[in-house]
C-alpha cells in the first residue's frame, strides 16, 4: 500500500521529481513523498543545469519581450556545458546576477508607484505561476537521485524507469484540536518541511554512494543504515524544533502594523531597549555593526520607507497600506505566504540573496533584547485571514439547494487494518502529560522575558537528543512490536519496519508527532544493494528489498491498461473550440460573507524565534546560548539553502549574520566563501557611518525626552534618507563601468563604508547596480 501511494499504481515516464502528499485517515497520518528518477554519475545534484534549463526554456518563450520579463536578460550566460561547474557557488551567482536581473523602472523614470520592488516581486510571481499560459516549468524539473559518484563521466546516465522515492510519515496527534493546529502549521509551512526533506534526500544519496564503496555487504548495510538514521534524526529534530521552539511574542514591527492603537507604549519600549543596547556595546559599536548587516541583507524594510504618493489617511505615523499591491492581489492572486517568506529572508535584491540572523550569548536577557530590537528592522507584511463566519452552514461551495440537515460524512471505506489500540493509548498518554499542546505562538506576557522558560522539558540538551544511529537498536523491536506495525499498516514486509522502531525510541518526547521513514527503494534491480547475508536488521532489509524489487518491476512493466483508451476518444481542443464558439450563459458570482481576522500561521509569527535551546536553520531570527551546533552546521545549511531554497525560486547566495553578545562581535557567514580562518564563522561586519549616525541621532533625541512616537517617525525618515541615497548611487552607476570610490565620497557624500548597504538597497529598485558592483 505504501509503495503504491509513493509510486502510484501506474508507472510514469516523467523524468523529474514528483511531490505527493497523502492524508491517511486511520491511523491519522500525513505522508509526504518525493519521487525521483535515479541516475548514475554526476555528483552535482543537478541544480545548476536545472537552473540553466529553466532559464533557457523561459527565454525561448518570450523572444519578443526580452526587456519585459524578469528572467530575460541573457547577458554573459555561460553555455550549458560550462554550467556543470563543480565549484558551484561563485559561478552560479555570477550567472544568476544576469539571470535574475529584473528590469525595474529606474529611479528617475516616470514609474511613480512606491513599493515598486514589492509590487514587482509579487507581480512576477503571479505571472510565473500563472496557469493562463499553460504549465511553465520554472526549475527543478530534472532533480534526480544520484546513485553513484562517477562524476567524471561526461553525461550522467539516466536509467530509464528507475525511480526512488522518499516518504515521511507524520503521525497526527489524537486530539482533534491539536491535529488541526498541527496541520494548519504543516501546510502553511510546507516549504520549510520540503526543504528539510531535500536535505534528507541528499544525505540518503550520499549514504548510498558511500556504502557502495564498501565491499563487505553486512558492513555496507550497517554503514548505510547508520547514515540514514543520522540524517533522519536530524530531520526529526529540526522539524520538531521548528514546531516547538519559542518565538518572540511581540515582534515590534508586526505589532505596530497590526495594532496601531498601542503604538505609543510600543515605541517607548522599543526605544528604551534600543537605547540600553546601544550603551551596552558602545565601545565595540556592536549595535551599529549589527544594524548595518541587518539593513544590508534583510531588505524588506526598503519598500516600507519608499515614499507613497497618497495622502495619509488617518494618523500620520500610520503608514499606508500599499494600494497597488492590494489591487494586484485581487486581480492577479499570488501567494501572500510566499511573499512574506521572501520579505523575511530579505530576498528583494538582485541577485537574490537570503539572510538569517542568529544572536549568540549566554546572557539570556541581553540576547532577548537584541532580538526584540531587531524585530523592528526585520520586516514583512502582516497577513489577514478571510474566513467564513463561524457556524455558517449555507456555503457557496455547496452546489445543491441547502440541505435541511448536514449529511453524515461519507462512510469510511478503508480497507486498512484498524490501528493498534495499544499505540493509540500510548500516544494519548504522551500527549496529555505535556501541557504544551500547540506552542506555535507564545502567549504574550508583559516583560521582555516572555519566552517560555521551560524549553528543557521538551528539548533536552543537544547531546542526548542526538540520535545514536546504530542498527543494534532493532532489538528493541521485540519490546514493542505494535509500534512497528502501526507505522507500516498492512505492508509488513516493508523495509522501513525496523527503522521506524529505532526512531520511536530515540526521543520519547517526539511521540506526539512521529516521523516514520521508508527506506529508498529502487524499482529496478541494480544488483548493488542486495547483499546475500547480513546481521540483524540489515539481513531482513536485504531480503525484503529484493522481494519488493521484483514486485515493482512487474508492476512497472505492465502495460498502462488501467488508463484505458485515454487519449484519442476525447475531442481535441481545437475541435472543441470550434464546437463552442457561442457566448457562455452568464451567472452571478456567488458572494459570501467573510470575516477578517489576523492569521496565526504565518512566517512573520513563526520565523522570528526567541532564545532557543538550539540553533535552527529555518529561523529568520533567533537567539541561542552556545554556537556549538551553529559552527557544526552553518556552512552546510547555507549551501543547502542555495541548492534547495525554501523560497521556491533560485537563490544566488545565502548569508547568516552571527551576532555574539558575549564577545560583542558581528560576523557574516556566506555560502559563497568558506572561511579559512579556524574558529571564525565569517568575516567581520564593518559599520556604516550612515547607520551609526541614524542610530545616534534617534537615541539622542530620545534622551532629550522627545516622545517616543516622534523618535520612531524620525527613525523612519532617516531610513528613507538611506533609500534616497541609494537612488543617487544607482543613478551614478548607470552607464558606469567602474566605481570611483573617492568620487562617491567627495562628490556625493557616500562614504566607502556605506557602499555595501547602499548597493544592496539600490539593487531592490535598480537591479543593474549589482552587476556593476559585482
Amino acid at each position, binding site marked *: 500500500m505504501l509503495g503504491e*501511494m509513493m509510486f502510484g499504481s501506474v508507472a*510514469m515516464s516523467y523524468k523529474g521529481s514528483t*511531490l*505527493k*502528499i*497523502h492524508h*491517511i485517515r486511520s491511523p491519522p497520518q500525513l505522508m509526504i513523498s518525493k519521487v525521483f528518477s535515479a541516475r548514475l554519475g554526476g555528483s552535482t545534484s543537478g541544480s545548476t543545469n536545472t537552473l540553466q534549463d529553466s532559464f533557457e526554456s523561459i527565454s525561448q*518563450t*518570450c*523572444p519578443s519581450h526580452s526587456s*519585459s*520579463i524578469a528572467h530575460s536578460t541573457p547577458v554573459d550566460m555561460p553555455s550549458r556545458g560550462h554550467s556543470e561547474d563543480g565549484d558551484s557557488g561563485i559561478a552560479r551567482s555570477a550567472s544568476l546576477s544576469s539571470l535574475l536581473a529584473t528590469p525595474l523602472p529606474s529611479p528617475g523614470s516616470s514609474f511613480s508607484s512606491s513599493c515598486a520592488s514589492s509590487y514587482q516581486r509579487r507581480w512576477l510571481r503571479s*505571472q510565473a505561476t500563472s*496557469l493562463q499560459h*499553460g*504549465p*511553465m*516549468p520554472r526549475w527543478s524539473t530534472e532533480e534526480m537521485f544520484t546513485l553513484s559518484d562517477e562524476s567524471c563521466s561526461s553525461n550522467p546516465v539516466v536509467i530509464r524507469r528507475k525511480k526512488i522515492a522518499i516518504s515521511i510519515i507524520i503521525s497526527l496527534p489524537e486530539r482533534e484540536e491539536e491535529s488541526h493546529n498541527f*496541520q494548519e502549521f504543516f*501546510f502553511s509551512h510546507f516549504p520549510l518541511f520540503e526543504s528539510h526533506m531535500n536535505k534528507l534526500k541528499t544525505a540518503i544519496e550520499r549514504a548510498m554512494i558511500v556504502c557502495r564503496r564498501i565491499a563487505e555487504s553486512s558492513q555496507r548495510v550497517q554503514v548505510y543504515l547508520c547514515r540514514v538514521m543520522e540524517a533522519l534524526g536530524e530531520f526529526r529534530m529540526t522539524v520538531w524544533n521548528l514546531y516547538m521552539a519559542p518565538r518572540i511574542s511581540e515582534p515590534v514591527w508586526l505589532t505596530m502594523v*497590526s495594532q496601531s492603537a498601542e503604538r505609543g507604549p510600543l515605541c517607548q519600549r522599543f526605544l528604551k531597549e534600543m537605547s540600553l543596547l546601544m550603551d551596552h556595546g558602545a565601545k565595540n559599536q556592536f549595535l551599529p555593526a549589527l544594524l548595518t548587516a541587518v539593513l544590508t541583507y534583510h531588505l524588506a524594510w526598503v519598500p*516600507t520607507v519608499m515614499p507613497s*504618493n497618497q495622502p*495619509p489617511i488617518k*494618523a*500620520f*505615523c500610520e503608514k*499606508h497600506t500599499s494600494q497597488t*499591491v492590494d489591487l494586484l492581489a485581487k*486581480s*492577479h492572486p499570488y501567494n501572500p505566504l510566499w511573499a512574506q517568506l521572501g520579505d523575511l529572508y530579505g530576498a528583494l535584491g538582485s541577485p537574490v540573496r537570503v539572510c538569517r540572523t542568529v544572536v549568540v550569548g549566554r546572557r539570556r536577557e541581553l540576547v532577548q533584547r537584541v532580538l526584540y530590537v531587531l524585530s523592528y528592522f526585520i520586516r514583512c507584511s*502582516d*497577513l*489577514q485571514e*478571510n474566513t467564513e463566519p463561524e457556524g455558517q452552514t449555507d456555503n457557496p*461551495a455547496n*452546489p*445543491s439547494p441547502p*440541505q435541511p440537515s448536514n449529511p453524515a460524512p*461519507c462512510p469510511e*471505506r478503508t*480497507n486498512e487494518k484498524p490501528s493498534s489500540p495499544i499505540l493509540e493509548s500510548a500516544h494519548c498518554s504522551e500527549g496529555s502529560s505535556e501541557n504544551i499542546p500547540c506552542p506555535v505562538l507564545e502567549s504574550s506576557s508583559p516583560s521582555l522575558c516572555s519566552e517560555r522558560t521551560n524549553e528543557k522539558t521538551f528539548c533536552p540538551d543537544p547531546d542526548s537528543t542526538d540520535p545514536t544511529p546504530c542498527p543494534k537498536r532493532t532489538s528493541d523491536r521485540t519490546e514493542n512490536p505494535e509500534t512497528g506495525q502501526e507505522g507500516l499498516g498492512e505492508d509488513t514486509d516493508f523495509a522501513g519496519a525496523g527503522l521506524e522502531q529505532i526512531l520511536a525510541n530515540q526521543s520519547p518526547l517526539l511521540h506526539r508527532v512521529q516521523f516514520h521513514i521508508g527506506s529508498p527503494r529502487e524499482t529496478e534491480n541494480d544488483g548493488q544493494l542486495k547483499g546475500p547475508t547480513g546481521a540483524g536488521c540489515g539481513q531482513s532489509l536485504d531480503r525484503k528489498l529484493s522481494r519488493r524489487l521484483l514486485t515493482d518491476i512487474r508492476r512497472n512493466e505492465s*502495460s498502462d*491498461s488501467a488508463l484505458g*483508451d485515454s*487519449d484519442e476518444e476525447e475531442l481535441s481542443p481545437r475541435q472543441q473550440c470550434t464546437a*463552442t464558439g457561442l457566448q457562455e450563459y*452568464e451567472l452571478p*458570482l456567488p458572494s459570501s460573507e*467573510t470575516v477578517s481576522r489576523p492569521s496565526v500561521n504565518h512566517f512573520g509569527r513563526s520565523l522570528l524565534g526567541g532564545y532557543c535551546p538550539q540553533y535552527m536553520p529555518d529561523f529568520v531570527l533567533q537567539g541561542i546560548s552556545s554556537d556549538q551546533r551553529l559552527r557544526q552546521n552553518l556552512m552546510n545549511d547555507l549551501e543547502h539553502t542555495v541548492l534547495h531554497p525554501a523560497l521556491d525560486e533560485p537563490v544566488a547566495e545565502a548569508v547568516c549574520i552571527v551576532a555574539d553578545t558575549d564577545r560583542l562581535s558581528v560576523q557574516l557567514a556566506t555560502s559563497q566563501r568558506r572561511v579559512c580562518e579556524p574558529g571564525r564563522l565569517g568575516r567581520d561586519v564593518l559599520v556604516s557611518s550612515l547607520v551609526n549616525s541614524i542610530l545616534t*541621532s534617534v537615541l539622542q533625541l530620545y534622551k532629550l525626552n522627545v516622545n517616543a512616537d*516622534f523618535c520612531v517617525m524620525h527613525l523612519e*525618515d532617516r531610513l*528613507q*534618507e538611506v533609500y534616497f541615497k541609494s*537612488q*543617487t548611487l544607482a*543613478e551614478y552607476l548607470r552607464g558606469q563601468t567602474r566605481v570611483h570610490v573617492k568620487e562617491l565620497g567627495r*562628490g*556625493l557624500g557616500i562614504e566607502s563604508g556605506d557602499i555595501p548597504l547602499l548597493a544592496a538597497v539600490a539593487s531592490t529598485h535598480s537591479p543593474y547596480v549589482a552587476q556593476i558592483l559585482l
Partner: protein
Amino acid sequence: MNALVALCHFCELHGPRTLFCTEAVHPPSPSPPQHGSAIPADRDSDREGEGLTMRANGSANQRTGMCEGCRSLPASHPGFVSVDSETGIRYLSHQHPRQPQLFSVVRQACVRSLSCEVCPGREGPIFFGDEQHGFVFSHTFFIKDSLARGFQRWYSIVMVAMDRIYLINSWPFLLRHLRLTIQSLQSTALKVFDTEQGVCPQRAVRMNSAFSPAVFPHQRSGNAARSLTSLTQHPNLWASLHSSFSWLLKACGSRLTEKLLEGAPTEDTLVLIERQTEQEEEMIGWEGAEGGGPKPQQSQSEGLQGRDFAYEDGKGKELHGPRFRSLRHLRQVLGPTEFRQLAWHVLMGNQVIFRGAEPGLIQSAFDILKTLLPVGCVRAVPYSGQYEEAYRCNFLGLSPDVPIPAHVSSSEFTVLVDVLAVGKASLYPSVCDDAVLSHYQFIISSANTQPTDRGPSLLNKLEVALSNENLSVDVVSHCLLCLKEEWMNKVKVLFKFSKVDGRGKEDTQRALVVLGATGSGEEDNVRLLKFWMTGLSKTYKSHLMTAVRGGERTLSQ
C-alpha cells in the same frame, strides 16, 4: 486564484474523463508595470516528448466515443461564465478548458487522480504533481448509483495550479470546502439511490440474472452511461457546480490578504496634494457662488498663477528663447561666485527678483532655482508689470522698466538680478546654447552684508557635486534631492522642538547639535531651517500638534 477546478469521473466503459472544468481568466496586466505584459502562450514545443506518456500501448484501436456518464454539458451548450466586477476576473466553465495548453494539463490531472495515484480508502484528499504538468489537489469520492457495478461510481474533484506552495498552503481550506461540495453531491445522489432501490431492488435483479464477468459491463452498457445529473436528479447541477467552483477559486485566492506598508509621503508630495485640494475647493466654490461667470474665473486664474508656476512645468514650454537648462548650466553662465550668492539668497528665503525683457529666460531661471527649495517654500510670480511684496513671493520676475521700491532695494533680504541683452541679433534665436546666453549680462545686486561663502552646509555640498563634471546632471539632481530630504528631516525635528514642545533655547541648541547643523556655517544652517519650517505641510504640522497631545496623555497615564 491562479488555478482551475475540474470534476472528473472514472467511466466504467471509457476510463478517466474530465466532466466539467472551471477556469479563471485574469484581466490583462494592471496598470503599474506596463512593461510586464503577459507571457506569450506558445510553449508546447518544449514539452514534446517529455511529458508523462499516458498513451495506452496498442490500445488505439479501441472504440472511441463518449457515453452519458462521460459528459456534463451537451455539445451545443455554450458553457457558463461569471464575472467578478471588482477585479475583472472571468470564471468560465465548460466540459473541457478552453485554452489548448490547459486541455492536456487537466487531462493529466484527471487520469492521475483516478488511475495512477493511490489514496488510502479510495476516497479522500491527495496532492501530487511536478513542474512539468502542474500541481494537483485532488479529492476522490463515490456517488451512489443503483445500476453501477458495486452500486457506486467514482469521481474526483481536482484543483490544478502551477504554484505548488500556494496549493499546498491552501490544503486545509480546499479540503474543508470540497468536502461540503462532495457531501452535498453524495447526499443528493443517496436520496435518488434509495428511491430507486425502493422501486426496484437491484441486488435481487442481479442475483437472479446469469452473471459472467467478461460481459458484465457491456451487458448493462445501456445503463452504465448514467450522467451525474441523472444520479442526483439535480436539474441545475452544472450551473450550481459552476457557481461553487467559481466561488472556490475566488475564495481560495483571497483567503489570505497582505497588509503591506509603504513609506510616508514626502513633504513635497503632501504640499502638492494640499494645493491641489485647495484649488479644487476654490473652483467648486467659484462655480457654486457665481455660476461660473467669466470675471471671477479670470481673477482666480491670475491669483493662482504664482502657485501654479511652482509645480506646473508645462507652462514654460510655450515660451521660446534662450533658457537655463540645469543648476550646473546656471552656474556656468553666472560664474561660481555669483551663483553661490544667488543660491544662498534662495536658500535663506530672501526675495529673488529677476528683471529683464525675456520672460522665458527668467522663468527658466526660476524653474531651476526653485529646485533648491522644498515645494512648500516656493511662492513665485514669474513675470509681472509691477513689484510684488516679499510676503507674496520669493521669486519675482519683472519687466525691464519696473522700478524697485527703495525699501526693497535697500533691504538685505532681497537680491536683484538685472538681465541685460548685449547683442541685438541674438533675440529669439531658434536654438539656445551657451553662446546665446553669453549675449546676456546678469548683474546681481543686494544690500546684504552677510558673508555668503560659509554656509549653509547644504549649499557647500551641492557646490562640490556641481563642480565635479564627472557627475551627470541627473546624478546631481538626485544628490540635491537627498540633501533636501536630509535637511527637511532636520526641519521636522526643529519644528517639534520649538513649535510643538515649546522648548527653550538650550534644548533647541542641543537638538541642533544632534542634527549636525552646528559648526561651520551654523548661522546659515539655522536660518535655512527656520525658513524651511514655513514650507512644512499643514498635514504634518497638524499631525504633530495633535499627536503631542495624545503623546502626553500616554505619558501621564
